[in-house]
């Protein structure tokens, strides 16, 4: 168990990186607290797996240091770092039994056989593999195989952290919840630091205490699911989290408010003032969940054209046009939607202002 510090970490797969674009990970600092359950969320190719491999030691970062509990481990090999990693598809040793699979990391470290037996049985018990210990691992279902790969990490004493690289991708949907529940239990029992890579936001939001959103080799925001939802610190986070994502509209600053498509709207007090300290372009962002659609008038409203309304069971999704841009509005089931022209209500407390993509607070 350990706190993991990344100091000024950057990585490039090129031998001689020329510009920023050659870096799979762009220079940043990050801290993973001991015992935290983190989800690392981002689109494909954003550097999630690279970051994971830097933590586990499979990859030596081009720049920066990796610290486990203030101990510099940058130069250490994966097995010396005492870290466990579970991969996208189950890695098991086909010819071995489940027992031998679990015992493998311990035997490689020359642990006495009686201690090996005790550890293997304890972990097998935890992961519900006891009944299968004598079986060949290759005959098992995919979720059991993933539990074995996890078990090979857990059998080692004092594992610093367990890293998961999209471990549920190849698992059948009906087995996913079983494995995810198991992950939760393991975390609650051992209080290990867990880092869980995924591109599925539901998985990230349900699994983790803290979600780290990455894009293009950068960590954009770390926060609880609620923080990510209510206060995305970057337009990418707003757009990536949520279904559909946050609505963004270009604006100018006017006094204490903003002008969107020729109409002035109010912003939370003081925001416009602080925004002037940053360079533009400016955008306002509002979640579809917080927007309201009325027949006309309204308190802080913009006139819009209703293009489409979709009934999605327990809510309705309306698409409206404003100055050539589409804005999505999530409305409660049965709410009245104006036929063509309507006015879009922006509650100031849920209206965020972004300067050059970054949240103004």
């Amino acid at each position, binding site marked *: 168990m350990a706190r993991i510090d990344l100091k000024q970490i950057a990585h490039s797969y090129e031998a001689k990186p020329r510009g920023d674009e050659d870096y799979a990970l762009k220079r940043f600092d990050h801290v993973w607290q001991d015992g935290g359950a983190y989800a690392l969320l981002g689109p494909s190719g954003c550097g999630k797996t690279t970051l994971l491999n830097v933590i586990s030691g*499979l990859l030596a970062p081009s720049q920066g240091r990796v610290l486990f509990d203030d101990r510099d481990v940058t130069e250490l090999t994966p097995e010396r770092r005492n870290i466990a*990693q579970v*991969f996208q598809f189950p890695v098991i*040793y086909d010819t071995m039994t489940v027992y031998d699979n679990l015992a493998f990391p311990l035997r490689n470290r020359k642990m006495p056989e009686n201690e090996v037996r005790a550890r293997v049985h304890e972990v097998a018990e935890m992961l519900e593999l006891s009944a299968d210990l004598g*079986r060949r691992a290759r005959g098992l279902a995919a979720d059991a195989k993933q539990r074995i790969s996890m078990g090979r990490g857990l059998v080692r004493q004092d594992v610093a952290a367990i890293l998961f690289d999209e471990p549920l991708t190849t698992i059948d949907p009906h087995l996913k919840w079983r494995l995810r529940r198991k992950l939760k239990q393991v975390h609650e029992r051992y209080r290990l630091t867990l880092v869980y890579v995924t591109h599925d936001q539901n998985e990230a939001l349900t699994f983790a205490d803290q979600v780290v959103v990455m894009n293009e080799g950068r960590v954009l925001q770390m926060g609880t699911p609620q923080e990510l939802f209510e206060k995305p610190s970057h337009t990418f986070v707003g757009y990536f989290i949520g279904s559909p994502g946050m609505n963004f509209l270009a604006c100018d600053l006017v006094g204490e408010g903003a002008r969107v498509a020729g109409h002035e709207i109010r912003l939370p007090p003081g925001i416009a003032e602080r925004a002037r300290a940053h360079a533009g372009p400016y955008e306002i962002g509002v979640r579809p969940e917080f927007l309201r659609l009325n027949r006309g008038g309204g308190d802080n409203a913009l006139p819009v054209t209703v293009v489409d309304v979709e009934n999605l069971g327990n809510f309705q999704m309306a698409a409206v046009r404003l100055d050539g841009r589409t804005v999505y509005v999530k409305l409660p089931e049965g709410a009245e939607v104006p036929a063509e022209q309507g006015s879009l209500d922006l509650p100031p407390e849920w209206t965020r202002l972004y300067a050059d993509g970054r949240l103004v607070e």
Partner: protein
Amino acid sequence: MNKWESNRAWLLVLPVFVVVAFSAIIPLMTVVNYSVQDIFGPGNRVFVGTEWFREVLSDYRLQDALVRQLIFSGLVLLIEIPLGIAIALTLPARGWKVSLCLVLLALPLLIPWNVIGTVWIIFLRPDIGLLGVFLNSVLGIKFDHTAAPADAWVSVMMMEVWHWTPLVTLLAYAGLRAIPDAYYQAARIDGASAWAVFRYIQLPKLRGVLTIAILLRFMDSFLIYAEPFVLTGGGPGNSTTFLSIYLVKLAVGQFDLGPAAAFSIIYFLIVLVFCFIFYQALQNVATGDRQ
């Protein structure tokens, strides 16, 4: 209407049936036909039943040739399979060197088989051959594959290993490249030694391609004809007379069609049985549950 449809189905199968008939069934039946008759000339033959089979099975020259053949194929598998895997493990994984190595390795496979025999005859000649001169004149080892049976065996084995190990290497290399990186990464995290990686990841993952390699190398080496025929002609004495060389002597040299046909069928069955055993053994290696 139904009747017409089923007839047309037969027509569609006909081309395959004709091809298989001409390529397998008719030749095989001809051999079966010869094996139960004594043929004196066109239109002059006698049915002899299983007499040829009994005669051939008790023929000591054939038994000797079979023993030689088994030793030869056994040595081929024992040398070429481990050597092929070892070479595949040392090949580079990416970059331009891959293409270079693969092309160089594949060269022996592209040479016609009788040419290979000729190349090795010249290579081994004590007066002008590169290896022959080196062994005899430089190292002072008396080496003559036309005089000493042991030298003839060494020569045939060298030629065979040089010729066919690349095939095993290519198959093993393809198998190795198909192993996902995650296995190696997991092994590093588990602290596995290089030997453990080979024993528990690479070897099990190579099982499929090695099955093919072993079957191919067994069949080909068991049926080997052109290369030793050109290099040693089965000699000195009968020391490198393998089954196919003996069979050709019997059928073409002495024109004993009956015994040769009976022998061919036995030969065919031996290959079939061995291949079946190898295949079953390799399929069942490490797949059953521990009892």
